[in-house]
Structure formats: structure tokens, C-alpha cells
């Protein structure tokens, strides 16, 4: 698979069809795969596509608007939704992008291994639904499902919604119920929910990784960086600011979030931020009809749209 | 010396002078009268307006002034806009003095001095000029080259005409960028003017102004035969703490707020080109 992708990319670069490729590069060890730009066929020697290519590369295209040169990008199915959304918002110029769709069987998270207490990671082998991990302290065999990235464990679609060329086959929408986590929280009492979120959000160090990795967060000047907004702050001074930052961040991407799950992947404190975004997705689906951001590049954003028969806010009190 | 790096003192603005359309000079004293603290020429102070922000400003008055400190401030951002809008009697907070001063008591002693300033760049130099004028006998001849965009943009014009021009051993050379009605002086940019005036190299030059002006003037001085060790300048960058800790004015291994803002030009050569 990796070699097929590589030779396609090499062809694109050598024919001059594109001047740059955004893909993944092998680093120090098996899980060290970093997003990288490749500008020559030789540099593609480091190109990698494996079980640790979790990063969503569509975010890196935002830097490229207005440039004439054409960029090729390697996108997994979930990443194509983000790209579609960016195209819809005119943050990326479709003509300058060559999308090479690649299939995905779910990506792994070495952080999940660490949380499970498996440390000193040195090697890893995936066979079917088992993962064998070599460590400095022995070998462990794990269920692949337990070490999948959270976003992959509840993957909503393996279908590429936008591509110029595919390597392998595209998949189908999945029937996994990705709202289980949200429903569990909704079923809790108010006090339990409050405790749950206090525990999660109080760990936030406000590093802005969630914001900066998010393909929907592309404002040139974020409201939290704007001194004139009255809410600009570099850090969370107290619980109020922790709540405010995450409520507003989720709100600002509501209806635009494609559920790519980058926020939860990059959070150094493992805050399940996707549960905030999915709440909005679930609410939009229930109140205003099913909507998947990024499924196409045309449909209307649910928050700049209305019907006369929308439910009243009091529906929240009635408990649905 | 006040060792408290974090907590500022309160100062009251007792006079506001309009110098140019976008520069005002503020006189600051302690509420009970007198200077908030003592300083040396070239040093800076952090002025702040609670709720608006804090900024580093060079102290434009000479240390020999025993009653008050003055700050010439150009309107260009959040804090300065606020300062420009305030009235006499307003309190602000002040902390300092910060940074290295010009070596007025060592390297400058007994030497001829050449001051070259552009626009608001006169502000930090005014302190040195007035200090040297006060201790006139300790320094040689003083030349002042000062240029601005237009006549209206010359900061401290009255003081220059009424005081500096009348001092013995002080020659003032003014220039403006473009021809203007009512101006019979020199027209042209400062770096060229310096070359035209053609100073002898047996002196110390002190430059302050916009980065591009500093760059070209330095080149001009080198053409005249000046060595970089004879040229001093003062820099400005974003600063928050003013005590070499917060990290934002870090250039190479120096912190501008603590190791500067006054640098000898050969010291700047050691630093990466990032200012």
C-alpha cells in the first residue's frame, strides 16, 4: 500500500503535476510519524503510510490559499470530509489541490498504550485484530480495538467524499453508533455531568492544540487571541474560563465540525473533546434533521438556515 | 535599589505637551511630588494603564531634572492611544528604571558626541543630550542631526530652537524628508544628510530612529570611516516583564530589556538579524 502511494506521489512530483506533497514522514520509531511536506522525489524516501498516520492533513492546506502551485495531499476517508468543509468555506482552493485518497483500517494510538500502563515502547506489529507491542519491559498482545484512536473506534465513514484519485477502494458509511458517549452523559444527572466535565476540563492547560489542529478552526484571528474581544486570555485563570473556552470553541465549529476527532487525538491531557462536538452534531441531527458537515461542498450550514417550525429552546428543559 | 520587579508605583500625569500631531510628551511625578525613581540616560520605564496594558517607554527627561520625568510617546497602539486620550491629573503606574544606560560616565566622557535621530527616535536621545548639556564641561563638541517626515513631525522643536541651538559647542542640523512651505532648512533623508555633513571620526555617534534609518545611517558612518565600536544605538521590541525573564524580547543570547536597550553596534553584530 505504502509503495503504491509513494510511486503515485513520485509520478505527480516528477511530471510537475504538483510541486509539493503533504504526507507523513517516518521519524525516530514505529509510532513517530509526523506530517511533512515533500518537494522532491528523493525526499519521498521517508514517506510512510502505516497504522500511526492518524493526523488529518487537510489542516495544512489552509496555509496554501492563493498560491498558484499545486499541492498533492494524502487523505484518509475521514480527512476528506474536512477538506470538503474547507472548500465550502473558501479556505482552500479546490483547483490547487490534488487529493490522493487512501483507505484506512483505523489508526493506532501509542498514547492509549501508555495510559494502559504499557511503556518503553520499541516496536509494534498488527495482525488482524491483535496488536503485539514490544517494550523495554517485555512483549504485550492487545486487542486492536483497545488501542485505536478514539476517532477511529467510532469511525463514521470509510467513504472518500472528495478525491482526484484513489489508491485501493473507498469504503462505506459505518453503522457504528458514534453518539453512545454523548447518550451516556445525557442519561446522567445534572450533578454527575457537572462533576464529569469539571474533572475533564480542569485538566486543560490551554495549549490550544485542539484549536490549532482543528480543520474547522481556521479563523485568521481567533476570538481568544483578540484583545478587543473581552475574552482573550492565554491561560485558564479559573474554572469559568476552562468552561468558556471549550463551550465557545465547540460552538464556533458547531455545524462545521466533521467529527474528524483531531481535537481528542492531540489533547495532551486526553480530554474527550469530541464529546462536546458530537453533542452539537447530535443536537443538530435531532432538532433540524440529519446533517453531516463536509459530506458535500454545497449544502447549507444548519446554523445559517432555519425553518418556521424549529423547536423552541424550551425543548432542552423538557429533557427530550 | 528597588528590588521589587513586579509591583509598580503610582505616578500622576502633571503636564501633557502636544509635540506633533501624533506625539505627546507626558510629565509624570509621584502623587506627593517628586520623581518616581532615579534613572540614567537611555534607561526605560514600564508605564501602564490598568485594564489596558503595559508598555516600555524610554525616559526622555534628563536625570538632572530633579522634579519630574518626561515621556515622549507616539500614538501607535492600544496603550499609547489611551495615553494620548487622557487628561492632566490622571494616574498611571510606573516601574523601573530598566535596561542599560548610555555610557555617559565612561566611554562618552571627554569625547565629541554626534547624535543622530529620526522621528520619535529623538525621545531616548533627548535624555542623553540634556544630560551632556548639563555637564557641558565633561564632554567635547556636540553635534545633533535630527530629521523627520515634515516640520510638524519634529519632536521637541521648541526646545531644539530655543535652547539647544543657543548652547555653545552644540550644533544642531535639522532636516525633513520632503520640501515644505515655511521650511528653509535642509531637505532629505537623515543617512544622506549625515554623509553630506561629513563628520570627522574622532567622536562617538549615537543613533536612534526607525530600523531602516539606523541601518543606512550606520552604513553612512562606516563610509565616513567610523568604526562600529564608536556607534551606539538603542532598540525596542515587545516587552512584558522588563527584567529579562518573560522571554519575548530575546534576541540571540541577549534580552533587549535587560542587556539593552542600549547596544554598541559591534555588539549587535553578534546577534542574529531578527530586529
Amino acid at each position, binding site marked *: 500500500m505504502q509503495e503504491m502511494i509513494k510511486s503515485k506521489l513520485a509520478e505527480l512530483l516528477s511530471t510537475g503535476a504538483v510541486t509539493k506533497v*503533504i504526507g507523513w514522514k517516518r521519524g*525516530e*520509531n514505529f509510532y513517530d*510519524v*509526523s*506530517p*511533512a*511536506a515533500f518537494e522532491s522525489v528523493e525526499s519521498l524516501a521517508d514517506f510512510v503510510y502505516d497504522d500511526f498516520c492518524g493526523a488529518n492533513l487537510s*489542516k*495544512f492546506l489552509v496555509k496554501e490559499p492563493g498560491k498558484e502551485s499545486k499541492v498533492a495531499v494524502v487523505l484518509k476517508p475521514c480527512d476528506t470530509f474536512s477538506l470538503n468543509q474547507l472548500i465550502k468555506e473558501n479556505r482552500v482552493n479546490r483547483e490547487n489541490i490534488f487529493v490522493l485518497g487512501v483507505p484506512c483500517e483505523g489508526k493506532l494510538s501509542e498514547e492509549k498504550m*501508555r*495510559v494502559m*500502563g504499557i*511503556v*518503553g*515502547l*520499541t516496536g509494534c506489529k498488527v495482525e488482524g485484530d491483535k496488536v503485539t507491542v514490544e517494550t*523495554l*519491559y517485555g512483549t504485550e498482545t492487545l486487542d486492536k480495538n483497545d488501542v485505536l484512536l478514539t476517532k477511529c473506534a467510532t469511525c463514521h465513514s470509510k467513504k472518500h467524499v472528495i478525491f482526484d484519485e484513489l489508491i485501493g477502494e473507498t469504503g462505506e458509511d459505518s453503522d457504528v453508533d458514534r453518539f453512545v458517549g454523548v447518550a451516556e452523559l445525557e442519561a446522567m444527572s445534572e450533578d454527575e455531568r457537572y462533576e464529569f466535565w469539571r*474533572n475533564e476540563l480542569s485538566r486543560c492547560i490551554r*495549549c*490550544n*492544540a485542539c484549536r*490549532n*489542529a482543528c480543520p474547522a478552526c481556521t479563523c485568521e484571528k481567533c476570538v481568544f*487571541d483578540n484583545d478587543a474581544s473581552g475574552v482573550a*486570555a*492565554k*491561560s*485558564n*485563570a479559573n474554572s469559568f474560563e476552562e468552561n468558556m473556552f471549550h463551550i465557545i470553541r465547540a460552538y464556533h465549529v458547531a455545524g462545521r465540525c466533521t467529527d474528524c476527532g483531531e481535537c481528542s*487525538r*492531540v489533547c*495532551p*491531557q*486526553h480530554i474527550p473533546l469530541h464529546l462536546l462536538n458530537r453533542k452539537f452534531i447530535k443536537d443538530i441531527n435531532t432538532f433540524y434533521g440529519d446533517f453531516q458537515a463536509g459530506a458535500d461542498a454545497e449544502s447549507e450550514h444548519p446554523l445559517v438556515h432555519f425553518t418556521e417550525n424549529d423547536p423552541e429552546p424550551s425543548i432542552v428543559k423538557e429533557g427530550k | 535599589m528597588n*528590588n521589587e*520587579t*513586579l*509591583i*509598580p*508605583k503610582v505616578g500622576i500625569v502633571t503636564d501633557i505637551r502636544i509635540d506633533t500631531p501624533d506625539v505627546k510628551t507626558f510629565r509624570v511625578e509621584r502623587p506627593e511630588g517628586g520623581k518616581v525613581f532615579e534613572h540614567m540616560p537611555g534607561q526605560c520605564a514600564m508605564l501602564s494603564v*490598568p*485594564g489596558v496594558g503595559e508598555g516600555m517607554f524610554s525616559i526622555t527627561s534628563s536625570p538632572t531634572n530633579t522634579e519630574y520625568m518626561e515621556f515622549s510617546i507616539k500614538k501607535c*497602539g492600544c*496603550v499609547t492611544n489611551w495615553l494620548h486620550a487622557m487628561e492632566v*491629573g490622571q*494616574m*498611571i*503606574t510606573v516601574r523601573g528604571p530598566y535596561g542599560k544606560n548610555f555610557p555617559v560616565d565612561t566611554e562618552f566622557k571627554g569625547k565629541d558626541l554626534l547624535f543622530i535621530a529620526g522621528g520619535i527616535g529623538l525621545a531616548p536621545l533627548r535624555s542623553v543630550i540634556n544630560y551632556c548639556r548639563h555637564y557641558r564641561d565633561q564632554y567635547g563638541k556636540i553635534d545633533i542631526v535630527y530629521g523627520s517626515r515634515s516640520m510638524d513631525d519634529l519632536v521637541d522643536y521648541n526646545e531644539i530652537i530655543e535652547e539647544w541651538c543657543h548652547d555653545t559647542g552644540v550644533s544642531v542640523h535639522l532636516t525633513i524628508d520632503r520640501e515644505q512651505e515655511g521650511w528653509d532648512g535642509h531637505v532629505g533623508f537623515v543617512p544622506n544628510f549625515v554623509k553630506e555633513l561629513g563628520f570627522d571620526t574622532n567622536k562617538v555617534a549615537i543613533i536612534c530612529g526607525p530600523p531602516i534609518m539606523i541601518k543606512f545611517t550606520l552604513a553612512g558612518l562606516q563610509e565616513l570611516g567610523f568604526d562600529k565600536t564608536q556607534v551606539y544605538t538603542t532598540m525596542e521590541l*515587545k516587552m*512584558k*516583564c522588563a*527584567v529579562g*525573564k518573560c*522571554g*519575548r524580547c*530575546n534576541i540571540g*543570547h541577549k534580552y533587549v530589556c535587560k542587556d539593552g536597550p542600549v547596544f554598541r553596534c559591534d555588539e549587535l553584530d553578534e546577534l542574529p538579524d531578527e*530586529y
Partner: protein
Amino acid sequence: MKLVKDLSALYEAIAAVQELYLPVENKGRVDFKLYEAGANVDIKTLKTVRSAKDFFFTQTETLMGFKVEGKNIEVEDLRPEVRPFVAFGVRGCDARSFEVLDKVFLVDPVDTVYEARRKAGTVVTLACGRPEETCFCTNFGITPEAPAGDVTTWLTEEGLYWQANTDKGEALTAAIAAVFTEGDGKAVEEQKKAISDIIAKLPLANLDMTHLEGVKEETFWGHPVWKDISETCLACGTCTYVCPTCQCYDVRDFDCGNGIERFRCWDSCMYSDFTRMAHGNNRNTQDQRCRQRYLHKLVYFPRRNEGMFGCVGCGRCVAKCPSKLNIVKVIKALGGK
């Protein structure tokens, strides 16, 4: 050698005399927390997510308040009151980071808040029983098998071996003397040996650092690695916020409605507004910002501080960067060409 068999008795004893902070587990993540009975103490996990710099340089702290009335301003000193505390379970890398921070905060003019905390804190370090593949502290002369600190401890099967190194450490030892028994210390020697053996196998433990010795600013100024890294740097602050030695901060005002509070908080040189000022920004692109961060640790800081690196090799940035960019890659790239 002093030995503690019952760890919870030790925690209780310390907590009875001073505030005790130690690694507490919460949903698989470990961070330093104030000890309370029943806390889920976890001293086996090697690294806390946040570094230990919070003890002395907290993420947010209010410094002063202003009461503004008309044209009048009243300044109120709101610096936090600092009580003696014990930081337990600090690793060797974090212990070294305090020395790095000292070089910034304790040089003239001294940062009084930092100084007060530093005086009030007793650091109890813990040898790294299970070093991880992200660790590279040995490159900076740190000894994870016998870390520095006011007290050094080793967690062995027998219990926790305890060795006071400083007056502060002795004072703490004396205050909780009742919890100690004597052990023969053999287990400590065994553990030191075991740790050294593991370290020999660590992939990053023996980096070539010679190319960084005595270099000047311009040496790596135009190096291609800055552009390479900045291509996919997200400009978030993860590396700086989990880093034990990053100490840049911002000073900001908060309008409470009934007064103004001025606080300082961590800042990151990775942010685009870090050096933005009214008349422009002297680091406009991400490659300039990346260069600043790494050169500051590897070149500028050593130049100011007798060759001491501004990195302690804790490996947090290696584990946490969303784009898997880190200082090890930079060190290697700089040495390569």
C-alpha cells in the same frame, strides 16, 4: 539507609507537617496534586503530563490588583501567600529543570514570587524505575538512577529508600522521623544497576551533542531544519506548556468589573502574537518561531549560562507534540549536516 515500608503512613506524616504534593492518577493520566486521604497516588508512572515547573512557576498567578476611581489608581499587592510544601515524586529531569529555571528567575533582579516558592518547597525526588523510550536526560548529565533534590528516594520491593541531601531535606526527615526503619540499601544498588542497564538500551539516551558545544547564534541560523519543521508545526503551545524549562510568560490585565487584576501566565513563543507589538512583529513566520524556541534552548541559554542546556531531556515534547516534532529531531538534524 532509611527505609519506609508503609507509603501511606509516609504521606500522612508529611501531610501532617507540610502541604504535600505528589503524583495522583486520574483516568490514566498522572499529575501532581495536593495529597488528601484516599487519593489515588501513582508513583510508578514515570512522567506526569504537566511538568513539575508548576510548583514554582504556576501557569496563572495574580500579582496585583488596581482599584480605579476617576483618575485615581490604587495598587494592591495580591501576590499569593506561600506556605511550606513538599513536592514528592519529582523525577531527575524535572529536578534539573528547577536549576534551569533558577538561572532565569533568581538572577538579578530576582523574581520574588518564584524565590518565595523555591524557598518554601522541599523537593523529594524519585529514581526512575522504568525509563521510557522518550527519555534522553542522560545527554544532559542527569542521573535518573540517583536524581538530585533535597531528598532522593528509591521505590524498591522492600519499600521506599530515603536519602536526605540538603539541610531542607534533613529538616523534613527529622520532622517525620517516626515513619522510618533501617534497610540494608542493597535493593537501591540493584535498582541503580537495573536502571543503568535499561538506559543503555534507550534509543535516545546517547545523542551526539558535540556539534552544539560552544556554538554561536549564527551557526545554525539559516539551517534548513527550521523550514522543514515549520511546514507542519501547528503553532500550538503543547511543547512549551508540557516543557519543564519553558518559562516565557505574559502579563495581562483582567477587568473584574469591580477592579482590575494583573496576572501573569505561561506564554508560548510558538504563538503568532508572542512578539507582536504596535508597530509590527519581528518573528512573522513559524520557521522563525520554531528557530527561536530550539535555538534558545540549545544555543542562547547555554551561552548565557556556562554551557548549561535549556533542555533536560524529559521527553514530554517527544510524546505530546500533535505533529511529532521535537527537540531530538532538531538536535539530530543540526548535527547531520
